[in-house]
């Protein structure tokens, strides 16, 4: 038995209202003040703030409730249990795997705990192009500060692991800045298992922070419950049809209906627009599900002389934004450089190859360093992102074509990463590309990469950052929702998640989602209850709330 106290088990013992799956039968109908679809970054922040305002909240989560006592740091468990489509989500043409959480806490339960404020150039672009004056850097600052205080976000002071040291060492040698990441952790054990669910509850995900607060304030959490359809009556939502599901997403009993005064959709990009598409909501400017962004991500592996053991230690500790800033934001695509955890299933699969190639990779695995380059999509006419479509069963798929503009970025990112890895002392380097080889020098690698064909499939590209599809904007011509998250055409519907981003952001998205959701949910609480709520102060007393 582990020495770690499981806050979810404790909460359940205290009498939390959790239904669905193994936690008790779902109701035949339910009425509340606000129903929140999803339990990830946007939903969690929203749930805490609205519950603090004294509102009766219901949270609807399609995935299971898993917590520290379930998190065994095993790839064999985690991808199937905690990720969308059993870990098998891909873009429509299958060219990009998409890692996205599907569990209580959403992607915050499985992300690598990198917490970046939205880059200022991104916020400036939103103000200039989308009229989002509420999102200027100065206007957003207090929201970032509030969220950072709530989720213990601060600079990571522990030494970076050997994988991150490769990035720092190589970058510094080339005169490129590689600062330390901020992380949302408290008492982190530096295990390196963030992507598999934090077994020590150190990561301040929604699972262990805002969702428990909301549940302690009386919210109802329904797990393994899919938000199937919003019912539209005039310009109002009159109900949310929910479908209980088994772990694999197949039906597990009769559908039921939740009614509420207000509906907040926060199921994450791809899923949020899909719910609104299934519901046939007004979409007069054909924006819904469009401009969905992925930060298409490429990788390069290096064999270092020293042991790297890239499975151990905080997976993200160092980053470089140098190549986001070597050209205009709407010029040739920029990329952020980070590292990826080197777990056997994830790394051996994504680095490609078979037979002899895999045997060689296996031998050098403990010395393997992996850098990743995340392409900043959404700022150029040729980086318009993907489109969410519905399959015949109503489930979503993202059609995201990989074009020459993105592939040019993939090649440049490979060149940058390979140069850094050699500068850090790599013995050999191999970009993740089906036709790449192990290169022994920067000169050899450079010549080879410049000659490689960059095409979809043979260029390994994936994504763990899904954004957009329900853009916010100052006019309905440009956005699905208003700057405060309120739907432009439907009166009692808001969207509070990463799907409201009008572009990608050029940084890991969790902190941007938190801050935008805090801004939107604080405003919604005020509109619904006239109360002021904050993440860093206690709830409005129950007696005062009931008088609202």
């Amino acid at each position: 038995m582990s020495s770690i106290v499981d806050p979810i088990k404790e909460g359940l013992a205290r009498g939390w209202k959790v239904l669905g799956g193994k936690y008790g039968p779902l109701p035949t109908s339910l009425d509340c003040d606000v129903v929140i679809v999803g339990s990830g970054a946007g939903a969690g922040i929203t749930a805490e703030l609205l519950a603090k305002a004294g509102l009766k909240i219901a949270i609807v989560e399609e995935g299971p409730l898993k917590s520290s006592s379930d998190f065994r740091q095993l790839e064999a468990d985690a991808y199937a249990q905690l990720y969308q489509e059993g870990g098998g989500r891909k873009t429509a043409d299958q060219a990009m795997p998409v890692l996205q959480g599907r569990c209580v806490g959403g992607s915050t339960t499985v992300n690598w705990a990198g917490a970046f404020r939205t880059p200022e150039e991104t916020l400036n672009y939103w103000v200039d192009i989308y009229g989002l004056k509420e999102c200027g850097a100065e206007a957003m600052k207090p929201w970032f500060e509030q969220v950072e205080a709530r989720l213990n976000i601060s600079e990571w002071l522990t030494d970076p692991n050997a994988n991150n040291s490769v990035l720092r060492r190589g970058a510094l040698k080339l005169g490129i800045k590689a600062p330390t990441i901020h992380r949302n952790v408290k008492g982190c054990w530096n295990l390196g298992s963030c992507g598999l669910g934090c077994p020590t509850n150190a990561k301040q995900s929604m699972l262990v922070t805002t969702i428990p607060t909301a549940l302690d304030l009386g919210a109802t959490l329904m797990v393994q419950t899919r938000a199937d359809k919003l019912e539209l009556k005039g310009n109002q939502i009159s109900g949310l049809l929910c479908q209980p599901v088994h772990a694999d997403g197949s039906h597990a009993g009769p559908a039921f209906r939740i009614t509420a005064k207000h509906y907040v959709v926060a199921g994450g990009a791809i899923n949020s627009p899909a719910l609104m598409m299934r519901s046939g909501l007004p979409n007069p400017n054909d924006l819904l599900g469009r401009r969905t962004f992925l930060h298409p991500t490429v990788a390069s592996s290096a064999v270092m002389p020293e042991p790297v053991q890239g499975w151990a230690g905080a997976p993200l500790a160092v980053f470089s934004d140098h190549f986001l800033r070597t050209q205009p934001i709407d010029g040739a695509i920029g990329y952020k450089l980070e590292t990826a955890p080197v777990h056997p299933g994830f790394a051996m699969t994504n680095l490609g190859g078979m037979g002899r190639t895999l045997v060689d990779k296996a031998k050098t695995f403990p010395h393997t360093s992996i850098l990743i380059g995340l392409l900043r999509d959404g700022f150029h006419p040729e980086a318009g992102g993907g489109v969410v479509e519905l399959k015949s069963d109503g489930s979503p798929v993202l059609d995201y074509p990989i074009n020459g503009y993105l592939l040019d970025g993939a090649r440049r990112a490979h060149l940058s990463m390979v140069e850094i890895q050699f500068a850090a002392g790599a013995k050999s380097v191999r970009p993740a590309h089906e036709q790449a080889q192990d290169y022994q020098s920067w000169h050899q690698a450079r010549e080879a990469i410049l000659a490689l064909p960059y095409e979809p499939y043979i260029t390994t590209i994936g994504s763990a950052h899904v954004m957009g599809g329900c853009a916010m904007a100052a006019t309905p011509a440009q956005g699905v929702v208003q700057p405060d998250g309120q739907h432009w055409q439907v009166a009692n519907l808001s969207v509070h998640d990463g799907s409201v981003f009008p572009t990608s952001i050029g940084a890991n998205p969790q902190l941007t989602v938190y801050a935008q959701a805090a801004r939107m949910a604080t405003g919604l609480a005020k509109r619904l209850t006239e109360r002021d709520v904050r993440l860093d102060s206690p709830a409005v007393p129950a007696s005062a709330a009931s008088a609202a």
Partner: protein
Amino acid sequence: MKRRSLLKLGIASGVVLAVAGGSLALLKPGLLADGRLSPAARQLMRAVALAVFDGLLPAEAAAAREARLAAHLDQLDANIAGFPPHLRGELSQLLSLLTSSGGRLALTGLTSDWAAASVADVQASLQAMSLSSLGLKQQIYHALRDLSSLVFFSNAASWQLVGYPGPREIP
């Protein structure tokens, strides 16, 4: 941009089989009703494992190799069982096509069936698919290879091959 999608395999299978002189109606699902690999699909995934993990499977004792393969195929079953129904449906269709002689020949170029094909033949076929100019063939390569790889290396039995000690214990 060519639009490529496994969703369109239904149509693709018809075309492929018409060319190969078969019929869609004669195809058997690649997954059984309970979601496990059909016997033919299990042969296919076994052949893929022998090719992809050539040099990483127990080499000395045939019994040890067979046991590792059997465990791998069982783990594949377990993984596939966790996929949502639409994904299982697409995979079933793909495996169905690839285990028909017409589909196998047209899409992989393998002349002998999966159980009889040599490791070198399957490797050559997978290699050709991975570099094919047809998106469909590249999709199939990744579907077979990536699923196999994720399951194989996530399994504790493979950790010593890569020098991974397993997760740090929490007292």
